[in-house]
Structures are given as C-alpha cells and as structure tokens.
C-alpha cells in the first residue's frame, strides 16, 4: 500500500476544519481535509448560526469582533457562487431576573470598552422598536445591531470550495478511523477504506467526534456530545426580526433572510448523543414558548425540524491547543457557539500550524486547564 503525504492533515470538515484548510491553502501549504460525510454534516451545518459579539470575556470578544469584521465581505472573498445570506438584523439577550440583567450590563460594559456597539435597552424601548414582540415580564435586554445571521451550510461548503480551488484536497465521505503517532509525535491518519496518510502536523477539528479520535493516540479530551433541536417555518413577509434569546427558558427565534423563522430552545434533558434524531417533545415546547413572545406567528406553518450535536466541554469553552502528542493540534469543544468562530478559528489554527504567533492570546483555550482546575468561565454562553 502506498502511503500518501501532506504538509498538514485536517480531520473534520465542519466550519473550523474547512476555514483552516482554506487559510492554509491560501498560504501555499499542501493540506488534505478528511470529512466523514459532506462538509458541515456534523454540528456546523445544523447550527442556528447566530453571529454575535455578546460575550463576557476579552478572549472571546477579540475573536468575535474579528469574525464580524470578516463576514461582511466573505462571500466576495470566497467567490464560489454560493450565497452566504449574511444579515445584520441584530441579536438580543432578554433578561427576566435582576441577577441576569446585572450580568448582561457587565458584559455590555466590557463589549463597549472594546468598541463593540452593544446597548442595554429598557422594556418600553424594546416595545417601541419591535412592536410585534410580546415580552411580558422582561426587565431589560442587551442588544447589538451589528450582530446577525449567516447560512451555516453554504458558509462551510464555501470555505471548502474555495480551499479546493486554491489547491487543497478535500475528501468527503472519507471517515478517518484512527490517528497514528510514533515516539510521541503525530504521524498521520488511517481512513475507513484503509488508506494511510502521513503529515508532520494534524489538526483535529471533528467536534464531538474528536474525543474518540484523540483517544486513538492516547489524548484524553473532555468533550462530549449533546443533542440540540431546531425548527424552521414557511417564509413570511421579511421584517428583519433580530435573533431574540429569552434567558428564562432558553427559547430563541429569528427571521432568516428568505423570510422563514427559526425556533430553538435549550433543554437540559437532551441526550448526550451525536446522532441527529428528532424529538416530538421539542416541537410542542418550543412552539409554546416562542409563540408567547411573537404571537403573530401562530398561524405560520412549521416545515421541518432537525437536530445536531453540541461539542460540550466542562466550562463550555473551546479547546485550541497543541496536545501532548507533538504535532497534533485540536480545535473543538465550542459547546454550541462555534459556527460563528469559523473565521477566527481558521485563522488561529493556520497561524499555529505554520509556527506563527496567533493574533489573539489563546492561553484561556489551553487543554491543560481542566487538569489544573483553572476553567475558562464565560458568563455569556447558551
């Protein structure tokens, strides 16, 4: 059997793997990406795809700000003929309790100190600007009008398409079954059909599937899957409804640029599985909760529901770090907010893989924080 070689192997064709492959190919690196199904088939394409600069830590805010600098011109940059459907209709965090409101205020203060145009708004201001929202019981919201939405499928596919155009090899329906290491160094990967690929550096960006793959070279990742559900309605007249996230029961909704509405709701009882199975309980719970806040949608038809796995870590923040196996980099564990970090994630992974200094300090994302019990606490996670 012939062993094939590359400069860098990327395992996992979600948005982080695809954007890293794109950045590396642009820099002239010989990169091969392996994806078990189609690009974005895991958590990325199934994401609610909200884009936000509402975080409560400087590390996440620096990266979030970079993402929002990239998105407005990304469709032009990638130039694939696919529409990324980027909109900036805003993102709202709705507080129903004093402690929640106080935390939102703290987050917004930090955001504003970094020149992010977030504001706090009172219930009557919300009512005046979005009269169709029925926000009984709210005590205030945090809102950023520059935040918005993107199509997570075409985002991931476009990164992959542009990477290919620049010379990257993107192998879809080609699962990696194990990583190979020798004398403490990464050596390559083996695919399901028995092909062996060698490279001095490997990026593992396979969401919740990263954990079993890392284990094949003795690396323990505290990353586990958790199912999350979404639904989409038929299209209605476009009225630029922002992303509205209700911090009482975790329900959220937004209008997509084609007029459809997306509803979601987090539920702590969801199973810890990677399988994208469906839940009837979700349909009832989410429609009940969302229609309370936007009753005008009660006659709108629900067209489809789907689910996808978050890749949770104990502190709900990502791991972006070299592992104890030399040459093996991981970028996973985004815990539900990773899609929007495609641009910054791809950039820092490319920088690490090329031996450059990352544009943000990645110390908080280090793998050893779990063993050291020095968790990366982010007050704004959903």
């Amino acid at each position, binding site marked *: 059997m012939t062993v094939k070689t590359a400069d860098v192997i990327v395992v996992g064709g979600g948005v982080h793997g695809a954007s890293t492959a794109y950045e590396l190919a642009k820099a002239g690196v010989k990169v091969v990406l392996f994806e078990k199904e189609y690009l974005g088939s895991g958590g990325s394409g199934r994401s609610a795809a909200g884009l936000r600069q509402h975080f409560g830590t400087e590390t996440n805010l620096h990266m979030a700000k970079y993402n929002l600098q990239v998105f407005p011109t990304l469709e032009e940059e990638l130039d694939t003929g696919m529409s990324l459907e980027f909109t900036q209709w805003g993102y709202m965090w709705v507080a129903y309790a004093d402690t929640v409101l106080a935390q939102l205020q703290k987050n917004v203060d930090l955001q504003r100190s970094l020149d992010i145009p977030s504001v706090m708004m009172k219930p009557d201001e919300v009512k005046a600007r979005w009269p169709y929202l029925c926000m009984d019981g709210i005590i205030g919201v945090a809102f950023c009008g520059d935040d918005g939405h993107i199509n997570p499928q075409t985002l991931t596919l476009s990164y992959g398409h542009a990477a290919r155009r620049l010379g990257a090899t993107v192998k879809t329906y080609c699962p990696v079954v194990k990583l190979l290491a020798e004398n403490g160094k990464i050596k390559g990967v083996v695919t399901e059909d028995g092909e062996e690929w060698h490279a001095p550096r490997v990026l593992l960006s396979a969401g919740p599937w990263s954990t079993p793959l890392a284990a094949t070279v003795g690396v323990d990742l505290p990353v586990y899957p958790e199912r999350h559900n979404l639904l989409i309605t038929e299209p209605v007249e476009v009225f630029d409804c922002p992303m509205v996230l209700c911090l009482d029961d975790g329900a959220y909704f937004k209008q997509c640029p084609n007029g459809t509405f997306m509803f979601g709701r987090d539920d702590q009882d969801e199973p810890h599985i990677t399988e994208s199975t469906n839940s009837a309980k979700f349909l009832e719970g989410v429609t009940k909760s969302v229609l309370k806040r936007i009753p005008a949608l009660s006659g709108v*038809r629900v067209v489809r529901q789907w689910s996808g796995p978050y890749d949770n870590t104990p502190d709900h923040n990502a791991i972006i770090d070299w592992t104890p196996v030399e040459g093996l980099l991981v970028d996973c564990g985004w815990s539900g907010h990773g899609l929007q970090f495609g641009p910054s994630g791809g950039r820092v992974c490319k920088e690490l893989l090329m031996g450059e200094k990352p544009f943000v300090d990645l110390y908080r994302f280090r793998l050893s924080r779990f063993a050291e019990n020095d968790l990366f606490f982010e007050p704004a996670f959903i």
Partner: protein
Amino acid sequence: MEENKKANIICRCEEIEIDEIRKWINAGYTNFEELKRILRVGMGPCQGRGCRDIILRELSKATGKPVADLLPGVIRPPVKPVKAKLLAEDNE
C-alpha cells in the same frame, strides 16, 4: 426550444432550474445532500416530493451509479407543514 429549457423549474418550492442543478453537479457536488444545502432543493414545504426523483436521475447520469445506490437525503418531521399554534396546544 431555448425558452423552454430556461423555464425548466425542477424544485418548485425554491424555484430552482435544471441548469442550476446541473451546474453544481458539474462542479463536483454529486450527491443529493450537498445539492440540498447549496440550492435548498428539498428544503421547502414539499421537502423534495417534486424534485428528488428528477435530481437523483441527474446524479445517476453524472456518476454512472444506479439511482438505488445514491443517498436520497432525509425527509424531516413534521413531513407536511403544520401550523405552529397546533403544535403548541396541550396534548394532555
């Protein structure tokens, strides 16, 4: 003849023409799952009842594989569109 070809809409929910579908097949997207995500075919209210078979035949022609061997994509609940308020009603 040319006019006829232009009006050949395969996915009526999203108004996608056969030429557009063939363009992306020629670009290397040779399965229904990928075409669905690039073009939204099968994502509309009918979830591909109208277009799936036609697209699978196109894919079969392009790849040389029989239709039965192609991945047909997924039809998701609630299968037929249902008013949100009906789903929100108590089922007890």
